[in-house]
Structures are given as structure tokens and as C-alpha cells.
């Protein structure tokens, strides 16, 4: 590799991490608002996350991605944030409470019954599941968690048992969605043909759209990018913090397309 290439690659990395620092600190501030993390703590979390990413790459755990590097880094930040909260905010009292819940789970107490109503409601809202489907997913999540607790895989270090169960429900729900939905990719020839109707778009117009797509505002950037990559609406809903229901997401997606189109039409007239 030449000096120039090394320089370019390093600059690309520096720019990436600079942008990510800003984005992830804002994310942590919002996500863990109630724990009032200081700027230095958030900086430390981000630095630890970068080093974790580095370690994963060096250890061969991360060779290629099926998501973006940015999203991957944010997921690490989320976990590192929880670790920091556990180490600095959780009291012995709270940790003892969690231990009691684990004991309850191991001895088939009422934990799963107590959490059922909330989780079913989340599953129905976020995944548009019927009552029966939501119940099935909840059962599977409970079983998975019970098994993990018995095998000692459940780590109190990351979160409280109720949050862990909620995450397990979401994971099981995504599995169900992926198993049952048939995702068909866009056919390049159809996209191309439709795009080129009426003599097609000029080079300038194509570049304009590309730039607009690159700089879409939030949350349209995430919604449209993931949607057109073939990610299910259910999964997108989990990645867009601002939107909580399936219906709102569908409406927002349509609005994003409409706004993008309107802006595109407005600017292209000036070209």
C-alpha cells in the first residue's frame, strides 16, 4: 500500500469515528437519559465500544457485515452503556432484587405470568401479531429465557430480567417474521425499465437523487434505506427509536417517499 493510500484510508476511518462519536453520544444521552451519564462517561463508553469493535475485527469475529458498520458500532455502544450503568449506577439493593427474580424463574414462580400482559401488548403493537401469534412468541421467549437461566447463561451484568425477557420476545418475534415472510428482492430490470420510461432521467437528475438519498433526514434515512434493502417493517420498527407502532411506521414511510419526491421535483426543475 502506498503512503497516499494509507493516508486516505486513515482519514476515512478518522472521519467515520468522528461522525460516529457525535451520533452515538447523542444516542446514549437519549437512550439512558434517566441514568444521567456525564459527557466523560459517554466519551468513555464510545471509546470502549471502538476498542471492542477493533478487538472483534482482530479476533476474526467480524469479517464482513450484513448490516452497516455504523449500526454494528451503535449496538456495541448500547451494551457498553448498560455495562457502565451496572458498574456505576446499580445499587446492591437492586442487584439483590434481580437475584431474587432469577431464583423465582428457576423455581417456576410468577415472574413470567407477571410480565405476560406487557410483553403481549408490545408484540401486538410492534409486530402486528394476532393474540394467538403473540402468545406463541411469548411462550417461546419464556422457554428460551428459562433455559438460559438454568444453564447460567443469563448475565445480570447487562440488564434486569424484565428487560432481558422483553429483548428475548423481540428476538423470537423477528425469527417468526423472517421464517414466515417471503422477501423478494427488487428485480433490477423492472426498476431500470420503469425508471427509464419517458426517455429516462438525465445524468444530473440521477446524481441529484443520489445526493438526496445520501442526505435524507432522520428517520427517513433509516426507514427508506432498510426498507429498500429488503428488511422487514417489523425489524425497521425496532431500529427507529422515534416510531412506536407498525401503523405509524407505514404512514411515515409513505410520507418520506412523498417528501423526497416533492423535493426532487422542485430541485430538478431548476437544473
Amino acid at each position, binding site marked *: 500500500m502506498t503512503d497516499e493510500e494509507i493516508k486516505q484510508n486513515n482519514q476515512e476511518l478518522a472521519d467515520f*469515528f*468522528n461522525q460516529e462519536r457525535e451520533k452515538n453520544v447523542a444516542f446514549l444521552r437519549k437512550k439512558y437519559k434517566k441514568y444521567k451519564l456525564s459527557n466523560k462517561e459517554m466519551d468513555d463508553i464510545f471509546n470502549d465500544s471502538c*476498542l471492542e469493535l477493533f478487538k472483534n475485527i482482530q479476533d476474526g469475529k467480524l469479517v464482513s457485515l450484513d448490516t452497516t458498520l455504523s449500526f454494528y458500532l451503535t449496538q456495541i455502544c448500547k451494551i457498553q452503556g448498560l455495562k457502565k450503568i451496572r458498574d456505576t449506577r446499580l445499587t446492591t439493593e437492586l442487584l439483590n432484587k434481580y437475584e431474587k427474580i432469577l431464583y423465582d424463574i428457576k423455581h417456576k414462580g410468577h415472574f413470567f405470568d407477571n410480565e405476560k400482559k406487557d410483553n403481549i401488548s408490545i408484540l401486538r403493537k410492534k409486530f402486528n401479531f394476532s393474540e394467538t401469534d403473540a402468545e406463541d412468541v411469548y411462550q417461546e421467549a419464556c422457554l428460551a429465557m428459562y433455559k438460559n437461566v438454568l444453564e447460567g447463561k443469563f448475565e445480570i451484568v447487562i440488564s434486569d430480567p424484565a428487560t432481558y425477557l422483553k429483548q428475548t420476545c423481540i428476538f423470537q418475534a423477528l425469527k417468526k417474521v423472517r421464517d414466515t415472510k417471503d422477501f423478494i428482492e427488487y*428485480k433490477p430490470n423492472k426498476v431500470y425499465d420503469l425508471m427509464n420510461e419517458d426517455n429516462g432521467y438525465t445524468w444530473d437528475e440521477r446524481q441529484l437523487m*443520489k445526493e438526496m438519498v445520501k442526505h435524507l433526514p432522520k428517520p427517513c434515512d433509516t426507514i427508506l434505506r432498510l426498507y429498500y434493502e429488503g428488511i422487514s417493517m417489523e425489524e425497521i420498527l425496532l431500529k427507529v427509536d422515534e416510531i412506536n407502532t407498525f401503523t405509524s411506521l407505514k404512514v411515515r414511510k409513505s410520507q418520506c417517499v412523498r417528501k423526497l419526491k416533492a423535493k426532487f421535483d422542485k430541485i430538478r426543475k431548476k437544473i
Partner: protein
Amino acid sequence: MKNNIDYEYFDSQVDKFLRNHMTAEEETAFKAELDTYEEKKQRARTIALMIHSMQEVGRDGRERDQRMIDTIKTMSEEQFRNVALKPHAVSLWSRITRYASAACVAGLLAFGGYRYYNYNQTVSLGEKEYMAYSLDISEMGTFKSASDNDTNIRVKLTELFANVKERKTIPSTISELERLYKLALDEDSSYYYYVDDIAWNLAIAYLKDGDREKPIPLLEDMIKRNERYPAITKPAKELIQKIKDL
């Protein structure tokens, strides 16, 4: 018809069409609809262009991500830290840090590529030294002798110095600082009061750009101009030595 389009439904139809998810009859009806209603046709075309652009941008992004993963794979932890993490202001001057850096240098020389090492160490030195000078100079005021009507200049310099500090847009920042440094050498120029601040930041910018030749004459001139001010000459002399030691 313009106001009666159910966009949500129509978009899902376009989606089905582009994914080949329509029956032959549905497809014929859909095409006829596009031919009849110009607004629908234009919306469908724009959606197709958007999908095409999304895919292109996504492909570019994936290539960039993969390139970054491959770059990180070839780096040592020290190199990665220099590029990705924010430097800490505290303890940069401590002997311990310097000795630790020396130990890292020895290790890197043994295991890393020499050119890669040289470039990254130069950049790393830039990261560390910026903080060092800022701390020292702050005791006597970073913008010494600045008068009230210098606000615009100060705003401009603050922005450029922040670019150097954060390692943002280094090439353009360097060319602007070079221009201002030339102006600042003229005693009649409004920038004259900031000549050393500009010189120091320009030297650091060169280091952050991986260049260890250009900072030396700048720093030597700083020393000449400020013989009676050890707060300025000391970090300048130390930095020259560190560059020569690389």
C-alpha cells in the same frame, strides 16, 4: 384524480410490481393505470429511481465499510487508537506517557510496517502535541493582544484551530492556515498578533497530515521570534526534538 390517490396503497402496488410479485392480470392493470394517470406514472418512476439510488448508495456504503474493516485488521491497537479515539489532554506531558510511548515505538518497530508506523506516529504526535501547547499557552491567553475589533479574525481562527484539533478537513485547513501565516508574518497585518498561534496550529496540522518535514522550519521561526518567552519556546523545542526522534 390528483387528490384522490391513496399514496400508501399505490406505493405498495409499485413495490409489488418491482418485486415481480403481481399476477399477469394485476401487472397489466397496473401498467394501464400508469399509462392513464400521469401523476401515478411519475411517482412510480421516481420510486424506481429512488430504489436504484438507494441500492447504489448502499453498495458504496458496504464497500466503504468493508474497506474500513480491512484497514482496521492491519492496524495495531496503538495505531487504531490514534486514528479512532479522541486524545486525552491530561498526562500527555508526563514522563510515564513518554516512556510508555517509547516502549510502544520499540514494539511497533519490531512488528509493524515501517512506513505505516512512521505515518501513524507522525499523526499521533500531532494529536498529542496540540493539547500540550494549548495547555501551556492558555496561561498567558491563547489569543494574546487581541483587541475588540478582531472578533471576525478570532472567529475564523477559532474555527480553523478547531479543525486542527478535531482533525477535520485537514487539507483545506492547511492551505488556509498557510495563507494566513504568510499574512501574519507582515507586521502591518491584522493577523500579526496571532502569528505564533497560526504557526503552531499549522505545524500540528502538518503532523496530523502525516508530514514531519514542514513543521520544523515553522517551529524554528517560532523559537526565534519568542526567545524571551519560554512558555512558547519550550514546547516548540520539545516538539522539534520529538519529530527528529521519530
